[in-house]
């Protein structure tokens, strides 16, 4: 980085203000923490149940995002086909749409009163599968965009070489293309997981708020906020989520995401 690239002071001041916008709420949350009972709150049966649901739902949603997202990213990055801009727009829509709208749309598609619901008998309302689907839909775009970005900057030379040596397409993809995309897949998976862990609006709208099956930690926080007697738990669980998210982001970031 050369001295010429150093941003002007006024830009740095605004940047500093921007950092404060993120820092102040976190510090204020820590200031509100019920420190003396924090661990009792973590051990509350509701928190344990919601924590279990959150772990399962976020990991399953991430797995779904990887399985479906990586092929989509390859198609978008390495192919030209009719309707590609439309496909990309459709995939990225959940990034900009309010999650509650995604939830409404999922209900229209997979709720009880849909063809899907009639066929399955129940639909996905208030089932853990519904919570996983909601989290996967909002999380997958992060993975697709990240992987696509990585693929655009990989060197096609290796794949050409493999092709010249007679590797069939699937073997070439599995042994050459996919390993080359690894950093992007890992980074995208972390982002997708983080988004799935924090998912609230689509989940509560589509999958509901049922303890033990769809009530994730964010839903538990919202529920605990409704009751003056459980306000402390709401703050405690918020801090728990903060700690988990920071730990994962910091440790995995240094390990897996190459520094530019």
């Amino acid at each position, binding site marked *: 980085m050369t001295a010429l690239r150093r941003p002007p002071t006024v830009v740095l001041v605004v940047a500093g203000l921007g950092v404060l916008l993120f820092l102040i709420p976190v510090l204020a949350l820590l200031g509100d923490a019920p420190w003396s009972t924090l661990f009792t709150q973590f051990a509350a049966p509701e928190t344990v149940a919601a924590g279990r649901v959150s772990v399962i739902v976020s990991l399953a949603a991430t797995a779904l995002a990887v399985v479906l997202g990586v092929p989509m990213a390859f198609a978008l990055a390495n192919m030209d086909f009719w309707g590609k801009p439309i496909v990309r727009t459709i995939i990225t829509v959940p990034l900009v749409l309010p999650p509650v709208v995604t939830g409404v749309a999922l209900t229209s598609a997979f709720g009880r009163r849909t063809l899907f619901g009639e066929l399955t008998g129940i639909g996905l309302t208030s089932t853990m599968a519904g919570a996983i689907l909601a989290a996967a839909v909002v999380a997958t775009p992060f993975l697709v965009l990240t992987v696509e970005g990585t693929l655009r900057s990989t060197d096609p030379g290796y794949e050409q070489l493999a092709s010249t040596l007679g590797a069939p397409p699937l073997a070439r993809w599995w042994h050459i293309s996919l390993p080359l995309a690894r950093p992007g897949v890992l980074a995208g998976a972390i982002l997708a997981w983080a988004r799935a862990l924090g998912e609230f609006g689509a989940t509560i709208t589509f999958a509901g708020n049922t303890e033990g099956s769809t009530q994730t930690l964010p839903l538990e926080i919202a529920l605990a906020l*409704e009751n*003056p007697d459980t306000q402390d738990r709401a703050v405690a669980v918020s801090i728990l989520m903060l700690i988990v998210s920071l730990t994962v982001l910091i440790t995995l970031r240094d390990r897996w995401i190459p520094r530019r």
Partner: protein
Amino acid sequence: MSIVMPATAVGCSTGDGRRTIDVYAASSLADMMELVEEGYERDNPEVDLRMNLAGTNALVRQVNSGADAAILVAADASFLEDLVEEPIVTPVALATNELTLTVPADNPAGIAGPEDLGREGVLTARCATGVPCGDATDVYLAANGFAVARSTEEANVRSVLAKVSTGEVDAGFVYRTDAAATDTVLEIPLADAPQVTVTMAQLDSSEATTELARYLGSDEVADLFARLGFGPAESRQPGIPAGDPPGDGG
């Protein structure tokens, strides 16, 4: 970084010169408040009522953390005790409401009464504990010893009603007025259902707010309440200001 400022500061005039009054009202009063807004703004064109509808507990929380509400209409009187600042006049009971059970119009799970909610596979929507309709549901279930097999807990009564009317749940606990508001749900009346008392607290002493409070306590509004299926407030006597809020909480 961009900071979005609220379009109008609370208590100030709107762009067209009308005076804004912020009214916070329970979700169960959504239809009622629409009628109130229409009626009041028609008679007082210089006033713009700005409605904030949510669970009463959420409204109380907002007021306690500094939101500038002029009037708070609670689904039940008991929740006004949680206000940090005392209302400037004694809260006035406006009407009563009652918990009831609803099912989707085609009653897919064949629910005949609250005893069916414990059947395996039945999914019930209810308000969360802490929300007036949720506390009333807790009271009702405990008092009658009914179990609920599986439930989804919602932040306000209108979310419960929406889940029932779209058929995403098999049954839901709402107020009688909510059940009456739509023909997409069937009501299954409950014996000994808990009652709540819709109660108004005036939070600022301005003339415009006092005027609105007087209107809310008027016979005209009492008629509107009755038309939507609310019960009369016991303490409300024609011409005589209501006294202490009834303690009958949910």
